[in-house]
């Protein structure tokens, strides 16, 4: 089933970390397997924020010597960052297997990211100037507390409560997906993509990488491909409705935009609230009510509807 949510404040920052936590917690019944957040905080000129994981959560229980391997992997990440002339300005462990880096770098981001991901067990969850992408097993409250998201300020965020249907219950298959290697672009999706494999093969032929077998990752790669070729976010969303088969509603966030697209059958839900200051959307109204308890006017976007909002 899965639940998705998005929020964007127009022209100001807010505590989007706690807002998204409340929205996703209200959608817990739609997906108990994992929860993910993509939060867009303040821009740090010249700095890159990088979120990585160096192991799966389940590895912590079953892997003998996993802590040693994690230490080796982190050491290798640091070494390769330096090899790419990146300066590590901050590095902190959110959990034993998830890290947050602030780096300065003016080289080729894609090459650096690819080099890091060649390390066994290492996956870059996000890279950009504003995006903080956090995902882990458990409900929104648990993930938010583990990663300290309650204090995260920003202009916009998207999030996902996942019910695993087509791939494993692990962080690799959790949403949001970062649109590798495009800075600050993330995607959450509710639905099934029926031409996933043919589209994936096409994207792989064009040089894109996939880290999971989750069909939702295709939307991130598809978006990255379009944006890299100068296509606007709105046009990319429109193309997806035409080119991607299946039933889906998905949200895309960029450095300063939030967009949504719904498939031709309008088979997956989305409820939308719009005001001059705030736009909030979610699979169910109950999630919007978690942050806006007063009576509000909401509506369901129609089939093939595409919208983009500016922060």
């Amino acid at each position, binding site marked *: 089933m899965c639940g998705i949510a998005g929020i964007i404040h127009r022209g100001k920052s807010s505590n989007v970390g706690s807002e998204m936590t409340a929205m996703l917690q209200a959608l817990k019944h739609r997906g108990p397997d994992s929860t993910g957040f993509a939060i867009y905080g303040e821009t740090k000129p010249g700095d890159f924020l990088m979120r990585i994981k160096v192991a799966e959560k389940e590895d912590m229980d079953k892997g003998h010597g996993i802590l040693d391997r994690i230490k080796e992997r982190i050491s290798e990440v640091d070494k390769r960052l330096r090899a790419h002339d990146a300066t590590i300005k901050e590095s902190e462990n959110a959990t034993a297997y998830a890290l947050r880096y602030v780096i300065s770098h003016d080289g080729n981001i894609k090459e650096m990211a690819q080099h890091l991901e060649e390390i066994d067990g290492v996956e870059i969850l996000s890279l950009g100037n504003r995006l903080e992408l956090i995902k882990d097993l458990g409900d929104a409250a648990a993930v938010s507390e583990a990663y300290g998201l309650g204090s995260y300020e920003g202009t916009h965020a998207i999030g996902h409560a996942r019910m695993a249907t087509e791939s494993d219950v692990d962080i690799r298959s959790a949403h949001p997906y970062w649109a590798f290697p495009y800075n600050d672009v993330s995607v959450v999706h509710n639905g099934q993509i029926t031409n996933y494999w043919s589209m994936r093969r096409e994207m792989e032929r064009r040089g894109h990488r996939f880290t999971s077998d989750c069909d939702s990752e295709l939307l991130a790669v598809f978006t990255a491909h379009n944006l890299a070729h100068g296509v606007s976010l709105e046009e990319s969303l429109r193309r997806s409705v035409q080119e991607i088969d299946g039933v889906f509603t998905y949200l895309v966030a960029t450095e300063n935009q939030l967009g949504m697209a719904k498939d031709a059958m*309008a088979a997956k839900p989305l409820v939308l609230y719009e005001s001059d200051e705030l736009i909030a959307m979610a699979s169910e109204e109950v999630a919007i*009510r978690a942050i806006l308890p007063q009576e509000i006017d909401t509506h369901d976007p129609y089939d093939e509807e595409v919208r983009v909002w500016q922060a």
Partner: protein
Amino acid sequence: MAGVSDSQLKKMTQEERVKALGMATEQLSGRSLFIEFNADEEDRFTYPWAPEVDFNKRIEINADNMASTALNEKMRELMTEGYGSIVIKNPRGKHSLGVGILNRLNLIFEGSLGYFAVGLIDGPNVRIKGRVGWSCAENMMSGTVVIEKNAGSTFGAALRGGDLVCGGSVGSRTGIDMKGGTIIVGGDAGALTGFMMQRGRVIICGNAGKNLGDSMYDGTIYVGGEIRSLGVDAVPGEFTDLERSWLSRKLRQFELLPEKGVDHFTKIIAGKQLWNYDNLEPTEKKLIL
């Protein structure tokens, strides 16, 4: 059932049983049954276990900190105590509220509801002063449900009777698989409205999305605005004076009659050219196709 015992019913053929139970096959479609109401046989149309309620006995409940199940159980308890007018405050988009009510009741929700609101009901008059999520009034048998704002998809799915009214716009697949009753939409309706409907009427005052009436077996759809596209086997029908009169009365009843009246409405019916309207067996079809 009045005058017919279970043992007698068991001995009857299906046709005899249908007649004995007050039902008759519908000649037009040959696929649905309808109950012919007779005031003398009122006991056939009420549930023996349904509580007697007094409309003058009124109560308000604050649903703010109540789970859906607890709220539904509370309403049942109040109906058993004879409350005939129940007002629910602060429903805050909760799911499955007001489901399975099988008696007369004035039920008012002062706010929006989530999924499956007032589904499986038979008799109550409901007003929702807000919006509803997916599948509002699914399988409703009788009564009236009025939503003041918008509604989500599959509005009135498998509706069997009663009036289901949305003052705003509704999502896709409105009236999917409906088997009777009337759905009225003050605004626009999404794609595949009336998909596979079998009986009943859908009235859309605004625009209709693509594939309107796709694969409908029977029933009628009236559209006041633009139709993006018709579905498979949905065709325009003749809009008679009798229907104009009925449509005007129905819309006026819910204060949704357009200023310019209903002459501009388009009527859509089933073309009845789909496979299910012929008498061929699948093996015979192979010989033809």
